[in-house]
């Protein structure tokens, strides 16, 4: 995974010449570059490392690059170039899919900045401090509902309770979406203005915290969903 100190050059395996990190073809021999030291998803797509991406621009870049190195166009090429086309296209598709989704985009940025979430499980382990109160209340409510159900209560008796218990969590999620949007805008203006490292770091830390909370909330809601459908 690229870090903030990622290299700025890649080397063409065919002619040995140097190429900029965001190039896809060797400037010297014009061959497709093998994957290995390519840029991160943003650089690969020729985009600044910002969180607000114009969807139309992303789509156009994706189509343009697909047209440059899709395996269809390397069918008759030597094996090394065919392989480069396959790998470069796979990477492009990953980059496109990741950056298309606003949340995946933030998670990727955190990764690229060396603040990645260690694993998807990380989100579900510890309760984020900001959510303690809601989670505590919800768990109590869930316990009571489970008892009610175990005692043979009809769905009409507990379902509305469960729905009510979900409401504050849903509200929290909406707040989070708004906070993420604000932080994303702040990050983008820092990138544009060339803001200080400490300022950037503060925004990234805040983003990371919100994302962890968000993932936790989603898991919680999924749990309730299962409970409702069980």
């Amino acid at each position: 995974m690229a870090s903030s100190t990622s290299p700025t050059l890649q080397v063409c395996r065919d002619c040995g010449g140097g190429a900029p990190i965001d190039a896809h073809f060797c400037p010297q021999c014009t061959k497709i570059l093998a994957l290995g030291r390519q840029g991160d998803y943003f650089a690969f797509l020729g985009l600044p490392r910002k969180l607000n991406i114009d969807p139309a621009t992303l789509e156009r870049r994706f189509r343009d690059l697909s047209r440059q190195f899709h395996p269809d166009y390397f069918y008759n090429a030597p094996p090394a170039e065919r392989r480069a086309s396959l790998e470069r296209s796979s990477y492009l598709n990953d980059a496109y899919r990741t950056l298309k989704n606003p949340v995946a985009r933030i998670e990727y940025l955190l990764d690229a900045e060396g603040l990645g979430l260690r694993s998807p499980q990380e989100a579900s382990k510890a309760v984020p401090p900001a959510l303690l109160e809601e989670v505590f209340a919800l768990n109590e409510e869930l316990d009571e509902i489970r008892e009610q159900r175990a005692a043979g209560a009809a769905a009409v008796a507990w379902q509305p309770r469960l729905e009510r218990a979900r409401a504050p969590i849903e509200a929290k999620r909406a707040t989070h979406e708004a906070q993420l949007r604000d932080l994303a805008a702040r990050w983008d203006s820092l990138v544009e203005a060339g803001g200080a490292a400490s300022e950037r770091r503060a925004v990234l830390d805040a983003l990371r915290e919100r994302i962890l909370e968000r993932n936790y909330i989603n898991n919680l809601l999924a749990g309730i969903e299962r409970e409702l459908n069980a």
Partner: protein
Amino acid sequence: MSKVVGIDLGTTNSLVAYVKDGVPVVIRDAGGDALVPSVVSVGDEGAILVGREAQRRLLTDAQRTAYSIKRFMGKGREDVRHEAEHFPFRVSGEAGGVVRIGLGDKEYTPPEISAFVLRDLKHRAEAFFAEHGEVDNDVDRAVITVPAYFNDAQRTATRDAGRIAGLEVLRIINEPTAASLAYGLDKRHTGLIAVYDLGGGTFDISILRVEDGVFQVLSTNGDTHLGGDDIDVLLMDMVMGGREGPTRNDARSRTAHDPSTAAVRVDPPETVVGADLQVGPQSPEDIQAIRQAVIQAKWDLSDRDETTLNGRRFTRAEFETLIAPIVERTLGPVRQALADAGLEPSQIDEVVLVGGSTRIPLVRRKVAELFGKTPHSELNPDEVVALGAAVQADILITGNREMLLLDVTPLSLGIETMGGVVSKIIMRNSTIPASGSEMFTTAVDNQTAVDIHVLQGERELVADNRSLARFKLRGIPTMPAGLARVQVQFQIDANGILSVTARELRTDVEQTIEVKPSYGLTDDEVERMLLDSFEHAEADFVARMLIEARNDADSVIQATEKSLRNPDFAEIEKEELAAGERQKIESVMAGLRMVLNSRDRETIQKWTHALNDATQHLAEVMMNRSIKAALSGKNVNSI
């Protein structure tokens, strides 16, 4: 130049098409017929019959005749247990292994039977080209279509069938996407398209965005076990009394209470199935006669409001009541595909119908209702997929960049983790090619191998997903438990077919992977079938020799490149190589590359030998250095 074609290998019928002067054309026989029934029959003397001839034998020798084989592709014996009873042929196979189809005294795998159909299409195309005075009428390369919802095993089985038939399979593409290519040809579409493809045995729905000639699939869904065949089975059950269909109830009550029905039973002979067939055991041929009668009735009801089946009136209304649940089953996947693409039905600009079963008026009505617009059906729904396959073949061969197909993988790919849970690595609807990787480590000290189970599907538990393969990663260097870091890389190529590589990161050692496909053939088996099936032994032998020559050339090129890339190469060149030696190697390698993709085996071999000779001295030098380095205990660079 030999010819490339596009092939629609269907459950019921197959077709072949090619591109002539930029326009895709379906290849027809002398009678103007494009459809080759996907039926294979083994004659008494062991002769293989394909198509209409084989289809006729369903009425005289059903047990030696195979149809709807596409339903068995990439399947295990257990998968088809329930459906096998509907077929006249023997279905067997080892537990956990590939299905075998018994015809006469021989057994065949589904790819072998499909290969007979493919070879027939190949011959049909070759005869057509010969007749049209083409210089080289050899057909040796093809794009073959599969349902979009086919899994890895089914795709691989299809590719194997192509190889067994002596075809180089340029690409496996999805049927709905192929259809969209054919539709996109004459009109420069921009917008969102839904392709609804209900064929003989499979159902697909694909949602595409088309812009600047790029056909990008946003989502796909389907059911590889839903199609016209299921309608036929319903009708057969109704006729044979196996199911309490509305018609049968109706008939029974009338026979019991109203003597006038006797008159209704006297009917034109062509679709009459004897009344005595309703009770007691039937011969396989009788059952096939019933099958053909119900198919005829089904066809009739696409154009008319009523027909005659089993000696009585059968109305479209009755038919629609009977098949409504089947049509309903297609709508779930449609809604899921729309949801996955993040779209409402009303946002779809155009709806395209593909597959013979979309001729059924109820299907058209339901699709129109769901999307709120009249679907397209200008192109023949039986032919449009083959046309698209021909277009894709042309793109691959000519490098024509006007159009580009970007398809997705229909099912998520994952591996088994602790507790029988699947951990997903590549999500469904990811644009292909796609890759993903996962890190593994060892559980006990000095463990040198790790077992990996690869699955496809959307469910959480291993048992609910499709097992694709089991791998054993071997050759992990001995070290304490948990220290090894084995990165396994999963690559889905543009065919939607998976390959796996692995590397231990601490030592950078590439791991050996033994692939045991869960429901597929090994390369050796395919190779053997290829040899078994050689009809024109010599022509096929030549093709295989050519492939081998190319492989040899490839490996010499790769070895040479590796040497030239060695970090010490500059030093080696200065100290040990003659002046101009490197330039010579490079120019010979460039020469070999030029001829590599030609069909001239001798020239390829000549250049391969030349490169071997040119690099011999370099290879010796490198070898000596490695030995010296090893003896002095130094680390050897990238051996």
